[in-house]
């Protein structure tokens, strides 16, 4: 608890034991870290999923644009290649969509729900804090009357103050106990909660990439010269480019 020097009504009696307070702090700290991580993970998951979809769409656009290019009308072989490419891209996209849907259902939605719990907890912690302040205030009031001379009116006031204090103390203790009980439980629940998510995340990609591999192996057999190394490709490109540059109509700078 923060140390507030001029706060009126600080009771002399130690209300909450240091160990309890430390436990509480520790548990709450862990929760706050977890909240932070959950939020960031949720954000990044969403970002990466969005980028994934956009990538897939861009790939589809590559082939769709080529297929609608009038080049295809002039060259039958080109048309065939582009059709094959487009089919592959569309299949890839639909698999990707399925993957993303699964991830959405099993990873992103749960993440969102999970991070939705934190505000409740934070609010509860705040309420506990309020209750604690009330408790302290009344406690110090009781202490003040106890210190005074035990005259009739004071006794009455003391009685009233004690009467007032009792429900507040009960309230705080209930809240404190509940939180101390609930926080570690909640913290622990993340393992069971997210276990399926991570598993689903991996499973979804296994399926996706297996299909991708099949699709693109087929496509590569169809439209690519088999088995060129990167260097060969680079050299081939360079050769073609310099052949182009050698033409008089090409400005070479």
């Amino acid at each position, binding site marked *: 608890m923060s140390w507030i020097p001029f706060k009126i009504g600080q009771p002399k009696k130690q209300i909450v034991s240091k160990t309890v307070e430390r436990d509480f702090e520790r548990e709450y700290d862990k929760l706050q870290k*977890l909240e932070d*991580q*959950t939020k*960031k993970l949720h954000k*990044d*998951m969403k970002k*990466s999923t*969005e*980028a*994934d979809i*956009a990538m897939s769409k*861009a790939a589809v*656009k590559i082939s769709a*644009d080529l297929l609608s290019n009038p*080049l295809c009308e002039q*060259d039958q072989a*080109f048309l065939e*290649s582009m059709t094959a490419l487009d089919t592959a891209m569309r299949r890839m996209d639909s698999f990707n969509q399925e993957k993303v849907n699964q991830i959405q259902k099993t990873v992103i939605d749960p993440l969102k729900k999970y991070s*939705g*719990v934190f505000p*409740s907890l934070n*609010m509860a912690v705040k309420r*506990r804090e309020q*209750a604690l302040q009330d408790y302290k205030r009344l406690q110090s009031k009781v202490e003040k009357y106890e210190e005074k001379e035990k005259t009739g009116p004071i006794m009455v006031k003391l009685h009233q103050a004690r009467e007032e204090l009792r429900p507040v103390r009960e309230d705080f203790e*209930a*809240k404190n106990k*509940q939180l101390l009980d609930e926080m570690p439980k*909640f913290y622990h*629940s993340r393992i069971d*909660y*997210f*276990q*399926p998510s*991570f*598993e689903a*995340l*991996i*499973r979804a990609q*296994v399926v996706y*990439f297996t299909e991708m*591999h099949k699709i*693109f*192996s087929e*496509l*590569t057999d169809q*439209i*690519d010269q088999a088995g*060129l190394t*990167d260097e060969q490709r*680079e050299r*081939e*490109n360079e050769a*073609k*480019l310099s052949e*182009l540059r050698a*033409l*008089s*109509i*090409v*400005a070479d700078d």
Partner: protein
Amino acid sequence: MQWAAAGVISSIMEVPRRPQPASLKLPLPKPASSDRSPLGAVEKRTEKDPVKEKQRERKDGSVEEEAAQVGEAAFNPEEETIESDVSVFVEAPSEASERDEELLDTNISPVEANSKLSSHDRCSVAEEEKSPEEVEEARKRSEEEEAAAKERAAQRQLLAIEELVQTERNYLRLLQVSTVTIRSNLQKLQPPLANLDSMFLYIEEVIDVSGRLLSLLDQKQVQPGDPLFLETLCDSFLSLSSDIEAAYKEYLANYNNVTAVENDYKQKEALWTEIVRVIKTSAPEVNATSLSFFLVMPVQRIARYPLLLQTIQKHTDPAHPAYSLLEQTAHTAVALNCRINEYKRFREVADKYKKTETLTIKDKINRLNSHSIAKKTARLSQHIKHETGMAAKLVDEEFDALEGFFYVLENGILELLENVETYLHHLQRFLAAKTEEFDLDMDGEKPAVSYKEITTALRQWILPTFEKRMQTLIHKPLCALRDLLVGPRNLIRKRLDKLLDYEMIEARSTLSYEEQAVANTYRTINTLLLNELPQFNGLALQMMWSTLGTFSCLHKDLASDMEQLFQGFAQQLPHSSLESGAFWEWAECAALEGARRLETVCRNVEETLNAPIVQPLSPSSQRRLKQLTQAHGSGKIYQVTGAVVGSRDLDLNLARGELVAIISEADSRGDKRRWLVDAGGRRGYAPSSKLIRYHQPTEDPPPSPHLTLPEGGAGVRRHSYTPGSQPMTAMRLPCLQVFAGYDFTARGSHEVSLRAGDPVRVLEPHDKRGNPEWSLVEARGGQRGYVPSNYLAIMPMTPVTPSTHQPYR
């Protein structure tokens, strides 16, 4: 010092040469003079009459000596046998070639020089024939005129052949000096010369082809005197002619660049003196003062081949076995020059128009003059005539097809490039999401750890490799290809301009010089495009195609890497044995189950921890409660949340915490903000915002799904007021019982859009006025708003316990 001696002798012999040519036995100066020609050309650049100058030089020993040095290779003992007067006759062609060189020195293109030269050649031949003393002398000397003439012709032929071979050797040697010694020495200069390599571009090919020509001659092991030699020479030349053309045309086309670079060097005085010094020390035997001294040689040489060959032909008896071959060779050489010249012209036109000019508006305005405006206006009017159909357009179908294809291709390439860039951009974004960094402290758990490892490998190794390959194998070549599109595009545009110009003058019968130039430019551009556009289109299409192949291959590699990686980890997962369908069922169930548990946690927290502390009711309040409950029923009891001070007629003053019963939820004018209440006898209005429902412990819980908790909650509940606007409500998880039955689109901010099947939570089954046709709902994303009640449907069975089922309405 053999050369020096030879030089002295020749200079001595030179003096009496003209008067008594027959007595001369030493023909040395002849090859020397012709060999010296490249040097002589430089030295004599300022002289007006080369013949006179030459005679003067002859008397000058030092010049002669130098010439002899150069002509070293020409010093052949065989020549000793050559007869007397030959030198005079050789004089003519060698002089001619010297002049030729002079002409070329001023950078006239080879063919022009060629034509001038041949006329000059004829001239000198005429001169030669005119010289009467010589002819007379020859006649007097020999009775067998015919035989002598024949012999002379043979000698002249031999000398001409010798000249060709010797000059070729000399030429090659000097080229080698320039490319090897001078170049390497220049490369050592500090700071390094800019563009030095571009000066020596294509010279290697020229050297190579020249060397091959000589080695072909040497291989045959025949001497120039042999009749076979001429045949060998012609054969060699013919066999190499295409190579010669290829080598020289590039060199010549690039020669302008060479002079431009040299002029650049000349701008910087200190640098230029340094260069000249290097040249002089590298090649002391020639008096060279510039790089172009050497570099111009191929330009001169290629123009000289036809001359030399024609000279040989002139001195060859038509009956000679190789005569026809020689004739053919000479023609080939001329044609070669013509083609090279044509190529150079094409290149120049192309170079002029293919570049995109980057001019500022100011430059453009400065460029405007009456001529350019007239030209542009004429083009515009011609264009308008085309468009309006007033004038027929000159149609070249072949070109139009090529142009169309080019534009389609260009469009395709640009689109492809743009899409690839988008793809790469999204890939970058994908890489930027560092999902592996947040593991939620699940260190010990297999799936989480696996995922972390996979993603790390993915982001740090697999995807960056993939991206790099995409960049180098797809993006870079495409960018290069895009840049190459500029030249043809500019030329096509320029062709249209020139076409418009051309159409206007096409009909005229006589053309001025300028008009001819315009017509030529159009034809040149058209021919160029017709020749090269098909190649360009073909190559570009191939590149595009292979790029797509690469794209597919890269994806295949990526997928196979990824598959392996994921498969490796997937097998270690706890549920790897499940079939795909079963797995997803399990995963989704688990997610739902998790959600339900979370809901429980939330409820616990809300119910038990958010309840505010409430003081027990005072005895007077308890009495009031009892009284009001009896009079109005428990559902109407409200508590005052803050002190109310009445400001209008019939308003009540109420203290905080006081209990009241509601008689009407509106005042007499229907204002819903003021409620008519019974405060234990007193009746009056109170602001509805300060009233809150009072829940009695004995009362049934209100029909809300959150409050029907079996566990925990009920025991702790006590007298309390529930703040209506609890922040907690926003966090409650959606109730799955009510769904949108149809799509609904919001018409304003107070409504919310729904898609059929979306689960919603009903917050109020009526609108603010209590109209049940509209319901306030919370949609999946947390947005709240009104939707038509009849758009909502209740799911027949509930996933949660039946007790929490909230019947709709």
